[in-house]
């Protein structure tokens, strides 16, 4: 099985966070934490992203956006919810315009708690996510292998 864990490209979407977590996500990339050591690249484009980092909770306006961005990513993909807002809604969960954490609209694989989540925590979260990323790939390839086998068999029968 090919090892794809060394190149996780992340895309960050700011749901309705207070910025605290956003800047900590950015801080991960800066010289002191340098996430690129692990091959992490911050890309703005869902087409090229492997890991979706969501900060902040989900509200009525951004729910379809988060969903769309997630759908645009190519499989296998992983979602990491950063900060308690993205996990549960955090302090804001009782606000009228907050539906809850990111898991309200997309399946979340890793929750990173903290308000704001510390850069180390975010790196840990991504690293956890990478493991899932690899599992996903294996599952995907297995499924594909089966499919092509079926096809071959179907071809033989004909």
């Amino acid at each position, binding site marked *: 099985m090919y090892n794809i864990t060394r190149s996780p490209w992340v895309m960050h979407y700011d749901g309705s966070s207070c910025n605290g977590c956003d800047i900590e996500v950015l801080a991960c990339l800066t*010289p*002191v*934490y*340098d996430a690129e*050591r692990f091959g992490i690249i911050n890309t703005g484009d869902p087409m090229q992203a492997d890991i979706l980092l969501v900060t902040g909770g989900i509200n009525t306006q951004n729910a379809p956006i988060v969903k769309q961005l997630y759908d645009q990513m190519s499989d296998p993909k992983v979602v*990491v919810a950063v900060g*308690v807002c993205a*996990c*549960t809604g*955090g*302090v804001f*969960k*009782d606000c009228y315009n907050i539906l809850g*954490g990111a898991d309200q609209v997309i399946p979340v*694989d*890793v*929750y*990173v*708690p*903290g*308000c704001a*989540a*510390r850069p*180390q*925590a975010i*790196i*840990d*979260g991504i*690293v*956890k996510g990478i493991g*899932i990323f690899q599992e996903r790939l294996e599952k995907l390839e297995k499924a594909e292998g089966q499919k092509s086998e079926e096809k071959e068999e179907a071809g033989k029968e004909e």
Partner: protein
Amino acid sequence: MGVMTFAGTALKNLFSKPVTTSYPAEPAEYKERTRGHIEIDIDQCISCGMCTRACPCGTLSIDKIKGTWTINRFDCIACGFCVEKCPKKCLTMVAGYQEPGGEKGEVTYTKSPEVLAEEARKREEMAKKAAEAKKAMEAKKAAEAAAAAAGEKKDN
């Protein structure tokens, strides 16, 4: 105005040591005051509920009877208000953040059996006392009633 004014700095940087910390190979260092997560010395807790009421997120819950104190760490903003409010000072803010995880479960702390037993005993005692008091009260009432009835009878 200059062209490539940054070249000197960039070249200097190239030959100086990177400032990158080697986390996670080396564990992170935390400052003394760092607000990481809440720890509880559960046996000190008197289940008064001050913390649950103080928490701006509604993260905490207690169960007086079972002697539990529950926190959802994926909901806690580590503000420290509960720590400030706890009358017994049994809550502390500790450095080091909560590990990320795939599930956002709650953590429940239960008081040790001795303490529980002690509390239960106290409660029982209290209950007994209350019951006794009640009994006494009832007895008194009954006595009064009886007296009254007697009085009435007398009156009649």
